[in-house]
């Protein structure tokens, strides 16, 4: 699993937010387009791409993209 690819996968769930906005330090929950439904899209993407099931708390406790990446990586 690679951080760069994870950021691309994450960014591809968003329609209105430019891909360039996303990097390892992005505080994703403060993005305008972030919503509880977006969280479901992220969970679905993580299931599809990494075969990992993340919980609500995994998202709640992650501040930056890299935090979430590390959670997923630990479950691989």
């Amino acid at each position, binding site marked *: 699993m690679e951080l760069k690819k994870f950021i691309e996968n994450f960014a591809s769930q968003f329609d209105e937010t430019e891909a360039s906005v996303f990097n390892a330090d992005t505080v994703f929950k403060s993005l305008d387009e972030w919503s509880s439904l977006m*969280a*479901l899209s992220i*969970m679905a993407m993580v299931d599809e791409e990494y075969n990992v099931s993340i919980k609500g708390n995994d*998202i709640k406790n992650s501040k930056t993209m890299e935090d979430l990446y590390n959670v997923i990586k630990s479950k691989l």
Partner: protein
Amino acid sequence: MAFITYTGVGIKAIAACVPPKRIYNKNLGYLIPEEEIEKTINSIGIKERREADKDVCSSDLCLKAAEKLILDCAIDKSTIDALIFISQTPDYRQPATAPSLQHRLGLPQTTLAFDINMACSGYVYGLSMAFAYASLAGINNVLLLVGETMSKTISKKDKNTTPLFGDAGTASLITKDAKFGTSYFTLNSDGEGADVLQIPYGGYRNPSCEERLKETSDEAGNILTGEQLHMQGMDVFNFGLRVVPKSIKDILSFAESKIDDVDIILFHQANKFMTDFFAKKLKFSLEKVPYSLQWYGNTSAASIPLNVVSEMQTPHYPQRKNVIMAGFGAGLSWGTCLLSLEQTKVSEIVEY
């Protein structure tokens, strides 16, 4: 491990009743920013829902559905041996609602009648219970009444739950008859997630109290009391994702069948984004996944039979020999079955 088969029992008829009052999600501007409403509707797939009046209970909706079923199939009421009522919105905390439905429907006093308190997995659990009774010597016909008035448990100031839930009552008649062939069930539970979907106060663990009847705001600004439904949406999704596709694979393997043989999957009508994703994971065509949640929302345990009544009127979905039903929700609890609906009479929907 609950893997069960039943032979020579099946669903003879299904009917459903919804309240006439429609609530439109496009009018939720007071709760959800206008620019997010359309996106929300497209994602969850729910355009409108039905809401029961203050004095209409789950039992009333089920009663009307049962009367429709009895009329349409010309059922002799004296042949109904058992009545099971499944709901989390019963008439009273005590006693159970099923005996009053026996009386109101004019069924004989020799009818076995009881309630089961289950949420969105309730229809599949109830079918299994009804099939089990109908398999016994001495019982030929079981009336399974499954209804919910979720609108009475939801805070209209909670944007997690408000766009999702609607009210409905349903009736299914389960009958002993060799023509039905074999059905397969798997029933499961995971109480570790009991708080994922919960009304925390008003039972006996946390009794009703003045303080918890006051509205409080959560970190996302949703306002609800302790006696309204609390839902952790992300964890519901995580739960469904973990168990539902697997449960469908398990039932197919148990029945020595495969996904290509399945004619229809009837998912509990929870959220279209979620169940579309399950179908995709199973590589199952969405053309064979009926949806009625756009009109009725999530009606908890009633959603599967309501979906049959709404979407499976002849000539729609003519292939219905291998039908999977997948119920999942509060408890946490989930049940999946594989059965035939070829012999099932589907009534037109009624309103009350």
